């Protein structure tokens, strides 16, 4: 109990140190785990694979066919970033985020380490925030892994140049890079809602696989509902509905209300499921 007693009288500065130490160890836990590194490597392999396939087939009759961006990649390597992000968004990215966020609390409970963590002189609220921060850091790393490899592979195989927007207008490369950063930021923030859902489900169970699987299910069910025209009234509130609004950054004038609208919906999911996770985590009896 000496540690806990020390916590009672600790000045705010020492509590901050404890939190920082906790965050460091949490990040080490997330990024030190072989499984998570493999996930990141798998995501980074997507643009490599797409890039090589497009490079090999660019002079064949099938060139220029398929989903929105690949046909532009051969003209400008920067589009490999968009092509890879768009192809990872429906399944791979949510899967990776679900694995890490579903594991955050349930994984510790399953390994029997959660009770030791709770002895650290840090309130549960802050512990949860630290957990969320670490998962979010992984989400950033996941999107960055795709974007950076996409940019490097695209530049090496196809070269980069002025960017032709969806509107048909051409902007200089520097602005193209800025818009790419906008897309990357939007994709990261689009995943925050799923992170909150994953964290909440993770606090419900001691079986990490259950939390991971149900988080993936939430993302997929949201996608399925989004495809049903009969439900168009609820579409704007769905977790995944605004994910492809990343295209907004590639239009003539980036419509700020559209972008903020998409982020507001993510904010709503974070608020509701973050609050649920907090209620559950701070009231649960932790027995393992």
């Amino acid at each position, binding site marked *: 109990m000496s540690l*806990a*007693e020390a*916590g*009672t009288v600790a000045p705010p500065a020492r509590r901050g140190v404890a939190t920082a130490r906790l965050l460091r160890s949490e990040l080490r836990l997330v990024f030190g785990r072989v499984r998570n590194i493999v996930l990141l490597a798998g995501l980074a392999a997507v643009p490599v694979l797409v890039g090589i396939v497009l490079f090999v087939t660019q002079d064949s*009759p*099938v060139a*220029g*066919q398929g*989903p*929105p*961006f690949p*046909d532009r990649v051969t*003209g400008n390597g920067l589009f490999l970033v*968009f092509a890879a992000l*768009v192809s990872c968004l429906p399944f791979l990215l949510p899967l990776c985020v679900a694995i890490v966020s579903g594991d955050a609390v349930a994984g510790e409970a*399953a*390994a*029997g380490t959660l*009770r030791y963590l*709770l*002895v650290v*002189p840090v*309130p*549960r*609220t802050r512990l949860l925030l630290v957990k969320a921060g670490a998962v979010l850091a992984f989400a950033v790393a996941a999107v960055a892994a795709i974007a950076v490899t996409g940019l490097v592979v695209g530049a090496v195989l196809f070269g980069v140049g*002025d960017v*032709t927007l*969806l*509107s*048909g*207008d*051409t902007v200089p490369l520097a602005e193209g890079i800025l818009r790419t950063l906008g897309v990357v930021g939007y994709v990261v923030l689009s995943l925050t809602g799923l992170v909150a859902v994953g964290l909440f489900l993770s606090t419900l169970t*001691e079986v990490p696989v259950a939390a991971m699987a149900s988080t993936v299910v939430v993302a997929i069910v949201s996608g399925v509902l989004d495809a049903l*025209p009969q439900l*168009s009234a609820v579409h704007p*509130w769905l977790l995944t509905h605004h994910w*492809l609004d*990343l*295209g907004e950054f*590639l*239009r*003539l*004038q980036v*419509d700020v*209300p559209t972008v903020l609208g998409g982020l507001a919906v993510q904010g*709503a999911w974070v*608020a*509701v499921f*973050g*609050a*649920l996770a*907090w*209620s559950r985590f*701070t*009231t*649960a*009896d*932790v*027995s*393992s």
Partner: protein
Amino acid sequence: MAPGGQVCVLSVVSGEVAHSGAMDTTRTFSPRARWAVPAVAAAAVAAAFVVPATLGASASDDLPSVSADDLVDRMANADRVPVSGTVVYTARLGLPDVTVPELQGAGPLDLLGGSSTVRVWSDGEDSSRAALLGEVSEYSVVRDGPEAWTYSSADDEAVHYVVDPADLERYEELSEEAAEPPVDGDLPTPSEAAELALAYARTTTDVTTTEPVEVAGRAAYQLEMRPQTDGTLVDRVRVAVDAETSVPLRAQVWGVGDDAAPALEVGFTDVSFEMPDASVFDFSAPAGADVREVEVPLPEPGALEQKHPDALDGAEGVTVSGTGWETVVELSDVDVDAILGAAAEGRLPKDGTGSSGADDLLDELSPSDGEMPALPELDTRALYEQLTTEVDGGRVLTSALLSVLVTDDGRVLAGSVPPATLEELAG
């Protein structure tokens, strides 16, 4: 369950942790109160999204009333002002869904059904731009004086329309009247819809005003037009006009079959009357895109003045019968089998179909280079058979607002009338 079936040695209940003193926040809430937090968060979120939508519904309350005639005059004589904003177009025509936007990208075919978003810019004179937004695709129509472009991001194809050099001089004279080169696959705007409705308002129609409404946050007068005849599929048309600038903000068309929702609706969801940046109208084909050049002759002066179906009458193979809402246009000597048969074999009829719109549609649907079939391949005959139903002496296409009859002897009749009327006319 702890691994290895271990008995849980240490049981840390939240209350006990509170006793350790580290969790100073834990003391202030009982567990039950904690579960109220998500409920409050959900309510706050719901309120944040719902309340702004219901606020400000009073903007149209203190408008002075105006008569229907005055409103029509006001629209006809309004100064053209710069407009930009977002337009949502919704069609509930009851046609089968034939497009796969996820695969094909945004294009004019999307307008046959469902909801589409179009972003528009206009300088109030002879430059305008409209962009149909797809998920990660876009179809743009840009007009700048005697030039016009369409660009489809999914096909990376640009079409450049220029006024026939022979007509350019006449265009310069006309440009004060804001004549625009016609473009295939044009996008709908509330202004165009309202213009069309007003043309009909002068025929056999009861024109009234309704209570003022609010569209895109602007107070607006609303005009209601009801055809006096029962012979048409159109039940009523409503046009909302901005009270300040007299710019049409929304047009809605109800069919006789469905009173709950308009069959066609096009309206601004947000609108601004500031001059758009000049660069918006400055378009040139992007590097690497396929570019097609089209020279368009200007319509004859007479046709410009009266935008009326009667203007078609007298053209070769075209007959117009009925007036006003009941107008039926009849094309004769259309070889449907040749069009469908040729398209099914993967080539176009040598001399086209006689309609530039149909030619473009066929271009769209058929392979571009003759080697690899374009994906996804649409079987035009299957599509035709899916859209139409067999009737005595031909096939008929029925939708909420328009009927088309293709007779076996090669005539095409179309009009905003029930299919039975067309069959009667065809004999």
